[in-house]
């Protein structure tokens, strides 16, 4: 194949792509030049992508000593974190002993935690036509003090990473292990807490599988922004000039979900041993669609802080800062432009600030005449909504069992709409004197 690009074009292109665009990226941080280059950025595409932790490799979060009577120490491990192909049904599990759906439980893509088609690779994890884009950018908007920033000179620069608006479906999975009361467990278990001895640690093993895309059903991408906050010196933030590192994140996810704990009859079921999970049992969520905006430019951001006084010092705070109590800011938060309120109802809501989580497809619930989407689920439906598949004999009734106990119970579709977060603050409490 010959193309228009000459060798020198390639050389220049490759070098400029790498070298000069870095220079441009740096120049964009200069306020005076930014208006000329808005939108430029680096693009990242990923083709045939897969990522797999070894089945025995983990990320562990450890707590501190139990906080007193009535508390147990818990240690959580997340093993085998994987991102693999989800376009085809074929798959594998961590144990390597095979897995598969019978098609009876609506779990074609949820029986196996990892896809094997295309070597596990996701063809369009990020297409060259819809890539991740990393760029420095300026947006108009109100800051924390209520000032409307709209000129190149005063608009804050944010660094943003914008995800694709469409991708192939992928499987995102891990198996988890919650170990309880580690320090009082059998010391013979050894330094790595192996539980091969009688009286070993108490634990719960589980698997989590998500089959979907990092975009909403209507194509809204995930978006991460990093910035220095602006105007954070109002009465809400009494310490002088408290502008600091801020993050906004728009979380977008759509697809199906399964959480299960049951293991097959021949699974080892030992602490730290890779379990052989049953292929059907579990809690399913079908046609989930979720959008959660955390922070709004330039008056709300995730910030990091610490407890500053009292006996909880030493602890860490993650805070989605309070919406400043300023009318113009509230109007921006609630409405798309000046609020048009009729009979107490906003006619022009700001959809960028409205989060939602839908556990199930509501198309035909909202419009019974529609032929789109999925039907409102019945008591044993497995194509929509939230349902449970019981743990029983599998894959079919065994000796002495006259009927499968893998019953299906669908509890319907559910949704939360209009989630606007005015303020959220999380404080750890494990540290202290």
């Amino acid at each position, binding site marked *: 194949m010959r*193309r228009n690009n000459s060798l020198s074009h*390639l*050389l220049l292109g*490759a070098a400029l*792509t*790498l*070298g*000069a*665009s*870095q*220079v*441009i990226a740096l120049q964009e941080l200069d306020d005076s030049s930014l208006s000329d280059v*808005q*939108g430029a950025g*680096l*693009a990242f*595409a*990923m*083709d*045939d992508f*897969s990522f*797999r*932790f*070894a089945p*025995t*490799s*983990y*990320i562990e979060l*450890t*707590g*501190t000593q139990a906080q007193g009577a009535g508390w147990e120490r818990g240690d959580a491990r997340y093993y085998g974190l994987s991102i693999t192909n989800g*376009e085809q049904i074929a798959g594998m599990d961590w*144990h*390597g002993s095979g897995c598969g759906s019978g098609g009876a439980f609506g779990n074609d893509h949820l029986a196996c935690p990892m896809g094997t088609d295309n*070597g*596990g690779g*996701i*063809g369009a994890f990020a297409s*060259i*036509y*819809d*890539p991740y884009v990393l760029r420095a950018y300026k947006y108009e908007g109100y800051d924390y003090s209520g000032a409307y920033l709209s000129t190149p000179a005063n608009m804050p620069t944010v660094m943003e990473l914008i995800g*694709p608006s*469409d991708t*192939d479906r992928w499987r995102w999975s891990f198996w988890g292990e919650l170990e309880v009361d580690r320090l009082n467990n059998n010391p013979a278990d050894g330094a*790595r807490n192996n539980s091969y001895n009688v009286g070993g640690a108490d634990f719960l093993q589980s698997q989590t599988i998500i089959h979907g895309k990092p975009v909403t059903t209507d194509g809204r991408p995930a978006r991460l922004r990093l910035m220095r906050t602006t105007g954070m010196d109002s009465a809400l933030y009494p*310490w002088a000039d408290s502008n*600091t*590192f801020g993050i906004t994140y728009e979380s977008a996810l759509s697809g199906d979900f399964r959480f299960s704990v049951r293991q097959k009859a021949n699974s080892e079921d030992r602490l*730290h*041993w*890779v379990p052989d999970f049953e292929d059907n049992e579990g809690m399913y969520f079908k046609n989930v669609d979720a959008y959660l905006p955390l922070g709004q430019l330039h008056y709300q951001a995730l910030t*990091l802080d610490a407890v*500053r006084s009292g006996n909880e*010092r*030493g602890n860490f705070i993650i805070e989605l800062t309070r919406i400043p109590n300023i009318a113009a800011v509230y109007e921006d938060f609630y409405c798309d432009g000046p609020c048009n309120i009729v009979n107490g109802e906003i006619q022009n809501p700001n959809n960028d600030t409205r989060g939602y989580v839908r556990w199930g497809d509501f198309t035909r619930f909202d419009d019974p005449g529609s032929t789109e989407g999925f039907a409102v689920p019945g008591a044993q439906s497995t194509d929509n909504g939230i349902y449970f598949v019981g743990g029983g004999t599998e894959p079919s009734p065994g000796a002495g069992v006259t009927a499968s106990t893998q019953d299906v119970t669908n509890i319907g579709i559910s949704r939360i709409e209009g989630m606007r977060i005015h303020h959220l603050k999380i404080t750890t*409490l494990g*540290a*202290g*004197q």
Partner: protein
Amino acid sequence: MMNRALGTQFRISLSPVARGKAFWAALVAGISMLFAIPGYALESMDDSEMGAVTGQEGVLISLEYYYNSDPSPGVNQGAALGGAFGCSAPNGGTSLANQNCRLALQLENRDFGWLVFKNGHASVEMNRLSLDAAFLGGDPVADNGVSTANKAIALNDEKFRDESGACLFGDCTTTWIDNSPAVRAQYIETGGLYTAGSPGQPGTSTGYNDVLLGMYVEGLAVEYNQPQVGDIWAAAPGWQANNFGSFLGFEIADNNGHQAGIAIGGNFYMYGF
């Protein structure tokens, strides 16, 4: 950022590979991406000079970084370095005060204290990452282009335009994108296997060695630069202090070693506009 590291080791090895199309820019591309010295890329554009460069058909890169941890192959690979100048055996108490193996972060306008990572060590190895040049939409073999599946996604041309709609990347068509050069990093999908254990020995994973990642932090806490009036604790700089224990610890490892094994597959393209 403050850190006190006993042993920090950093190594990058490069080796030329004779595969793929002869893209002159590959070595320049790899080096400029790694070291972010755009000036080199611009100085190296003379064709006559480039002709003598080895590695012009792409480079393989391996990278190792060990922070307070043992790089020697074997069961201790990635383990904390001990001894008088090393990390302490974790005990949930005095070990958190270890000064050799801590790292502290401070953010703007949070200068009353530090977020201190206590008694920690880390390591990362990236093995045999292939860097080469590519035409994004070219033939997957001859041009290192993407797969058919990758091109099946509809063009989202808003990504390549500014807010006024002006195109920032050629003419914002798929044809332009197809013909555009890019840097490609590639891992061949190799995966791995799990072998179930026997009593006394939990199962083991083999393979999963594209990236080895080990990380351990015994405790995290905020430590303050000065005590308040009436407090008795030491007035050391926050990044040295250990007055408040820990609210969280974390570890990345394997049941059979100090580093998690990770298999990565795929082609990663970077281009700009």
